């Protein structure tokens, strides 16, 4: 039950993009079309769940016993980079269909703030490996929801007559602001 609450919290109330500002770059960059947004969301869900599990395992069974907690930033970023490479190779070899769907987004994820951010939050809040993995999965779902909504709005917005200076980047930011206000409604779920 606590896990479910944690998941709802990570997914809707404290949405990773709209209230914690992690992974903004890809949120704005890959949200032009619904298909690419969905692909990015799925790839991130896959990597984020896996990386929060692996980072949890390494932190609890390697860094803590040897008293190396201070190396966590370096270790986590290298784990994430290596993991993404490994996942890419693995999918290419054994799951061609999945690779075709997600492959192009995988390199983009290596330095997505959300992946490293979740690994660090897990440590900061002293989550166990299981809790951390659930948190990672829920965060990624929250990201996917947000990016798909934004992509849908942007597809509709193409036909609108936006005032000159607001074309492109500013109007997308304003859309994100309105979505962020809407997501405040979920704080009543607490």
């Amino acid at each position, binding site marked *: 039950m606590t896990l479910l609450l944690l998941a709802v919290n990570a997914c809707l109330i404290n949405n990773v993009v709209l209230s914690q*500002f992690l992974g903004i*770059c*890809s949120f704005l*960059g*890959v949200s032009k079309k619904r298909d690419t947004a969905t692909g990015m969301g799925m790839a991130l869900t896959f990597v984020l769940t896996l990386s929060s599990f692996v980072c949890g395992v390494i932190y609890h069974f390697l860094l803590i016993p040897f008293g190396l907690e201070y190396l966590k930033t370096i270790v986590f970023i290298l784990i994430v980079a290596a993991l993404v490479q490994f996942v890419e190779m693995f999918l290419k070899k054994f799951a061609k269909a999945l690779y075709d769907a997600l492959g192009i987004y995988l390199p983009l994820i290596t330095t997505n*703030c959300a992946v490293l951010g979740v690994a660090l939050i897990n440590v900061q809040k002293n989550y166990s490996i299981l809790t951390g993995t659930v948190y990672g999965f829920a965060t990624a779902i929250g990201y996917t929801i947000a990016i798909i909504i934004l992509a849908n709005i942007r597809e509709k917005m193409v036909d609108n007559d936006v005032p*000159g200076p607001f*074309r492109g980047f500013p109007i997308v930011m304003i859309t994100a602001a309105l979505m*962020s206000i809407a997501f405040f409604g979920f704080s009543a779920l607490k």
Partner: protein
Amino acid sequence: MKLKKNSPVERLWNGIFVENPVFVLVLGTCPTLATTTSAINAIGMGLSTTVILALSNLIISALRKIIPDRMRMPAYIVVIASFVTMVDFLMEGFTPALYASLGIYIPLIVVNCIIMGRAEAYAGKEPVIPSFFDGLGMGIGFTIAIFFIASIREIIGAGTWFGIQVMPSGYVPVNIFVLAPGAFLVYAFLVAVMNKLKIGAGRKPKKEWDPTEKICGDCLSCMKLGICDEKPETCSESPAQTIARTKGTVEEAVAGSAGAQSSAAEGAVSEKKEETKS
């Protein structure tokens, strides 16, 4: 004003005005939005980023002939992460209050687009001294920009500046400006003002001027910054395409992200294809 290329002053000027990372390149959006709730937070974040940016540029530039080309990304990451860890501990020790309010965003400087982008676009190729000043200029430009955003948010949203009451006592703070939506709104309006100034100055922005295209789809694709500097015509392609192209598989990218590209980019790619065919 004509400045000598790669001189320290030119690099500082470039970082602060010509290629301001926040308003012109639109890089590092995560800390720009997240740490601008108050002026003091922005200054803390900006200065720590500046230190890391200048020092990592210095080291990466010094090691540029030793690092093998294929291993440069992991090598850059290790250099940057080492400096971030140092700054992290220094701030925890000497400025605990600031450290607590910036929280997770200090270690997240590792994945800040600006730092990787400068390492790839500049420090990996140029000599040590200009690289150091390039990092310093970019860092100062970043600090000024987020300080500006933070000041607006703090004054409107809390009625204070650096924690000191500046608005008249009857002023009711507009809370939403210090909350998440305020960050998006203020940033959006400032970029819109920049665009307006550009249009007013007669330098008409390109028809579809859209920094979201030019930047990375993600922090890694800031590497694109390096590519853009060399070949401006590749700026219009989507991040996925850039990555695919740097891997030498343009066709795959076109198939994989059929929708992601603007029609102009499509045209460019098909031209390229024809060239290779002929």
